[in-house]
């Protein structure tokens, strides 16, 4: 018994070392830099900087675009999840693969492609021109960023929703029908509640990367739309102010933490 505990500890050590070096140490560094000034003295100044209009606005905008993208992802993913779950084995795997396939390519490359599609003289406007329709200027607007986020993060919403939907026992649905529920009632009172864990993890997996992104907003926003992720990136690279960058990161982490707490609470509710 003792021996096996020792072995398992030994086996776990690489993971512990990994967690320590790549999770705990960086987190500690962010907290240290975020709460100190150049002289190393404790300060909250890096945190309160968020109250400056320019910084606060970037946080609000990031939250707004994150929520919009998450909602769109959900609205697209849920019906698809239901269709897939209702399909025969084999076919749904094929369609699922189609959705995951683009993820095999580099994320930056795929976002770069959206630039070419949406550009003023891009593919989209070429097609509109052929149809004698007026061109649309989507690139470098918040809308372009939302498109990029939905495109990149949709699979993270589809997979958990599909998983939880496919786990629902057919007999539960049949029982509801037997007891006289119509399709809408069955959906609202049986299917939807049972798929909540999938929805929650889908929301978390889409909302957090959407909130923190700086690559998509820089590329599809033409650096005209400033999100909190861009602010942090600028502080670290351009302004070389690690203290302020870390302070902003702490604020962002708070929002992520809130999201995680909400999801874990609702998870526990499900379990109970």
């Amino acid at each position, binding site marked *: 018994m003792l021996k096996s505990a020792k072995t398992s500890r030994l086996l776990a050590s690489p993971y512990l070392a990994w967690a320590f070096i790549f999770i705990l140490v960086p987190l500690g560094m962010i907290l240290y830099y975020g709460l100190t000034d150049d002289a190393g003295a404790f300060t909250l100044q890096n945190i309160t900087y968020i109250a*400056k209009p320019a910084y606060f606005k970037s946080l609000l905008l990031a939250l707004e675009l994150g929520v919009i993208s998450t909602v769109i992802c959900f609205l697209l993913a849920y019906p698809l999840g239901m269709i897939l779950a209702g399909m025969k084995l084999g076919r749904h795997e094929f369609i699922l693969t189609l959705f995951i396939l683009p993820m095999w390519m*580099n994320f930056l490359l795929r976002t770069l492609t959206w630039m070419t599609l949406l550009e003023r003289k891009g593919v989209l406007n070429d097609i509109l021109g052929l149809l004698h329709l007026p061109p649309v*200027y989507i690139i470098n607007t918040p809308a372009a960023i939302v498109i990029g986020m939905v495109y990149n993060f949709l699979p993270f919403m589809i997979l958990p929703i599909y998983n939880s939907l496919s786990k629902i026992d057919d007999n539960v649905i049949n029982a509801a029908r037997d007891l006289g529920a119509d399709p809408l009632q069955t959906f609202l009172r049986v299917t939807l509640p049972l798929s909540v864990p999938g929805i929650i993890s889908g929301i978390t997996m889409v909302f957090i990367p959407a909130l923190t992104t700086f690559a998509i907003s820089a590329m599809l926003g*033409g650096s*005209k739309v400033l999100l909190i992720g861009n602010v942090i990136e*600028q502080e670290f690279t351009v302004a070389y102010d690690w203290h302020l960058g870390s302070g902003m990161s702490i604020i962002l982490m708070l929002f992520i933490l809130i999201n995680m707490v909400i999801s874990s609470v609702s998870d526990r509710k499900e379990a109970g």
Partner: protein
Amino acid sequence: MKRLLSVFLITLGCTAIILSGCGSSSGSAAGKNGKLYVYNWGEYIDPDVITSFEKETGIKVIYDMFESNEIMYAKIAQDDSAYDVICPSDYMIQKLIESGLVQKLDYSKLPNATANIGKDYWTKSQQFDAGNLYSVPYCWGTVGILYNKTMVSDPVDSWNILWNSKYKGEILMQDSVRDAYMVALKKDGYSCNTTDKAQLEQATQDLIAQKPLVQAYVIDQVRDKMIGGEAALGVIYSGEAIYTKRENPDLEYVIPKEGTNIWIDSWVITKDSKNKENALKWINYMCRDDIALKNFDYITYSTPNVKAQAEITDDDIRNSKVAFPDLNSIKTEAYSNLGEAGDRMYNDYWMQVKSAD
């Protein structure tokens, strides 16, 4: 873009280091005369020059690139021994000197530099490197407006055209604090090194007013977007003018009458360089006239190497007012280091511009 790519590559690199730790650790292939870590701007050298340097000297070159002075500084301030020789711009060289991150050069090992680099450029360098102790000029140029003759009907001779609402959505601005503010400050007739609050406030309001007209804030992409006809007007470095005109004859480069920034990118050796002798050999090699000429043909950024300038075969380019403007006929001002408080002030104002609608 390159910034993102480099993050990706660093991640890959870290993985590779971890993996190689498991295998043989003696695998690093040094040349017979050691190694040299070079840190330079992206697309700022003819790759053949690196190869020929390696062949002639037996030194293995490890070559990395950066996209902006600020990104370079962030890395060097972390660990300056990571690179031996770097190529920052004027104001950043001043900052590196003030931070004690670079070392004085032994000119007895740099005969090509003293012989071939023009006197004017040494004089200009004094502004950021008094006494020319730390840096050897590599490239220089101006910042100006590149415009597409088929898309712009008005005469282009002033920064004001970048505020003309006729070109809404057709303007590309530089996505860098100093260059963006230089445009606005020069337009209003101020110094591009000002730390005067009222002047910076005015420049900020101007940049915010300009924002709806701007298609995008970009750095390297100005070149490709202008060649592709994506935009009518773009703020760009003079070194790109020859290249872009070669690719798209409709493009024309102009130095606005209000004056502009003149910049010099120079080689410096880091304070804790582990391969100082090799770094000196590198700088000396870059100053050889045939090498400077080869480089100029490739990157088209003006060379301060007067011997190489005289050897340019294409008359149009050798006498080009774009590549080699008469410095007495245009108003130019170099950037100087603003100090920490100044940098913070510019950055806060810049954030206001970037977050404006």
